[in-house]
């Protein structure tokens, strides 16, 4: 029962993040919202595994976390440099 309440709270937050992704004025707001949406979907999958009594769902949550991070880094790098293979050019801030 309490797991269901937790899942509903996470879904409400996902709806708020999706609303920001739809109304976000520029691309950076949208990237941020999609990143938050991915983190929340990891949480939802983990909670759903406990609702169903099958914690094997956590493997899926782990894969979602990995893909979410790689996707965010790839998109930000593409937006910044218009090139995924861009080096750091001696910039002390690195290449991402």
């Amino acid at each position: 029962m309490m797991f269901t309440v937790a899942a509903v709270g996470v879904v409400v937050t996902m709806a708020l993040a999706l609303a920001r992704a739809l109304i976000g004025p520029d691309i950076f707001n949208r990237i941020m919202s999609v990143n938050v949406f991915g983190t929340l979907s990891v949480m939802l999958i983990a909670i759903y595994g406990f609702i169903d009594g099958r914690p094997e769902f956590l493997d899926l949550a782990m894969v979602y976390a990995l893909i979410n991070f790689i996707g965010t880094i790839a998109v930000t790098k593409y937006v910044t440099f218009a090139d995924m293979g861009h080096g750091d050019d001696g910039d002390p801030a690195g290449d991402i």
Partner: protein
Amino acid sequence: MDVFVDGFSWVMIVGGLCFCLIGGYGLITLKDMYARLHAASLIDTLGVGLVFVGLMMQAGFTLATAKLLLILLFIFFTSPTSTHALTRAAINGNTFPTVDDPDARAVVEATKTTVEQKS
């Protein structure tokens, strides 16, 4: 299960949900992309952290707890990295925060000239 551990785990899960909802509210209402990143970080750190610690207490000493700990550790390291990458992309894309404080405005103007020189 021990009643104390059970109750404490529910307190943690509900607390994490409160942080998630506050973060979602901030994502909608805050004025600036840089201010909204604070709300996003709230969800990524305390929201996920408290909910996952609560789930770990529910699972006990099983394989599920180890997996939850791995996911939590991964998010703990990757969330600041993606925030940094996103901020750098925004600054390179000529999006700057709106500030009232004169000192902060001087920093923003200096950053603007640096970005313009680079491009």
